[in-house]
């Protein structure tokens, strides 16, 4: 187990340190110190971008892990629960109407993304309340339905907007890490640490939740209350993250899955591995996105899905084979 840790931590640190140096403009130590322009690219563009990628990637992965546990379903992700599409609708709406309210100095698009996610959460919870069931089935089903509904609204808006807006909408929908400044990072960091902290505090509850409702009750956990509370908190955080980077798929599905395979015996290790690998995966794919076809940047969402889907099928096959 120690070897696995060292491997993940080691590659992590190396990747994170190297990534800002590589790109269309190569940067070495000398130019970093002597050249004003390269030092600007390094410190003002690439470093914050790497940090944003890491925060977003590990938050998406962690959200996936938590959703899987509280819904006892390895396919529960930000996508399947409709939170992503709500955020997407909010952002698309903002682009269409050219809305630009800024909030605490942040771009207004983020706020619309967050509001969209809130609408999703509200709708899912209302449906659950009407049918008087906060079961996995209700939440997943209403999430899927909301997903479809919002997706068609997004397509309608896409038809109505002009060409440049369509491009920025499509780019956002695929998911990509746009250059940000430190203001955004400073806004996200406390949220990120809060997210990680509560996950560790709720470790035991998350384990018990994954073992089923009757099990949870017999061990003294009010699973219905727990599930709803955690669902709301995580969805709030997701709404914010997604409004920054777009609905990047697959990270919330693959990373928890790999972590579970690597660290079967310990949920705490699974959490740590999910946080680190989620962050690394997104920073690394973002790095690929901006270096594969320079100077064109491919939206990172394409790469995560392109690598993610086959890789996921590979893992699925090998783990199912081992089980039988």
């Amino acid at each position: 187990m120690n070897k696995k840790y060292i491997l993940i931590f080691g590659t992590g640190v190396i990747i994170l340190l190297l990534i800002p140096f590589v790109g269309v403009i190569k940067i070495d130590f000398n130019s970093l110190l002597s050249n004003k322009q390269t030092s600007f690219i390094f410190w003002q563009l690439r470093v914050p971008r790497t940090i944003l990628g890491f925060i977003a990637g590990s938050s998406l992965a962690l959200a996936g892990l938590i959703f899987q546990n509280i819904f006892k379903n390895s396919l529960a992700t930000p996508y399947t629960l409709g939170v992503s599409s709500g955020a997407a609708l909010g952002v698309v709406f903002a682009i269409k109407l050219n809305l630009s309210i800024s909030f605490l100095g942040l771009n207004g698009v983020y706020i619309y993304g967050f509001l969209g996610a809130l609408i999703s959460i509200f709708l899912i919870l209302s449906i659950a309340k009407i049918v008087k069931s906060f079961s996995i089935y209700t939440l997943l089903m209403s999430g899927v339905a909301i997903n479809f509904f919002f997706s068609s609204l997004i397509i309608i808006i896409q038809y109505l907007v002009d060409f440049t807006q369509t491009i920025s909408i499509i780019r956002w929908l695929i998911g990509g890490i746009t250059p940000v400044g430190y203001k955004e990072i400073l806004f996200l960091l406390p949220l990120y640490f809060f997210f990680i902290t509560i996950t560790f505090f709720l470790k035991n509850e998350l384990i018990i939740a994954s073992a089923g409702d009757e099990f949870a009750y017999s061990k003294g956990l009010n699973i219905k209350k727990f599930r709803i509370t955690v669902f709301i908190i995580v969805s709030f955080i997701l709404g914010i993250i997604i409004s920054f980077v777009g609905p990047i798929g697959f990270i919330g599905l693959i990373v928890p899955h790999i972590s579970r395979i690597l660290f079967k015996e310990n949920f705490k290790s699974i959490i740590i591995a999910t946080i680190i690998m989620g962050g690394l995966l997104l920073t690394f794919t973002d790095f690929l996105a901006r270096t594969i076809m320079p100077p064109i940047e491919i939206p990172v969402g394409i790469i995560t899905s392109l690598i993610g889907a086959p890789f996921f099928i590979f893992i699925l096959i090998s783990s199912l084979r081992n089980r039988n």
Partner: protein
Amino acid sequence: MIEIKNLSYNIKKKKILRDINLKIEDGDFWLIFGPNGAGKTTLLKILLGVITDYKGEIFIDNKNIKKNTKKETAKKISYLPQFEEFSLPLCVKEILLSGRYPYTSLFKDYSKNDFTIFNNTVDQFELHEFVNRDINTLSGGERKKVMLASTFIQNVSIILFDEPFTFLDPEAISNLTKFLIKLKDNGKTLIIVSHNIEILFPVVHKILALKRGEIVYSGSKLFDKDIFKQTYNVNYEQLISKNREVIYLDE
């Protein structure tokens, strides 16, 4: 001691349980039986606090269970489900430790004492080789053993079982029965829902026969033909006799 007073429970207009009155003394060993849909599992779920919108009152040690927190209930009562099926990989160690969850306070991890109890139970149940494995990779009998051990770690006085013998092979059935007797000798209150009457009749103290949500009989009269026939519509001899090739229904 559990006291159930005028307990009724409906789902929409369908009556699941009707006017149940029952007193379960400490150290009693109860078998609850009855045809499918009699309300047996519902009764267990109400005792456990999963279902709360029932009519009537239930007291455990003279305290209304609605006034207990879930953790307080879990210090007294534990439940073993019919199937131990887990959709996600789950480490045996973590299942066992969750038996200490009722004793933790909010946002606190398990204490040294909790780990000592855990280690002792692993020794006692000889679970060393399973501790770091995913429970989904164990056999039915082994899973049952792990779940029992987690109840043991929980240190409850009342244990509810829902069809504990399903999918067990004869050896596992015999082991489980021996363990139940051991629990009984240790003064635990056991409540078992089961159709496996032939296994349990020799060991239980009292029976509760349920049919369509109503009590047919409750008490210590074990081998009574009429009770049996009334509950299941099957002749008792037919089920218990040694050459029971056919179980026929009267109707």
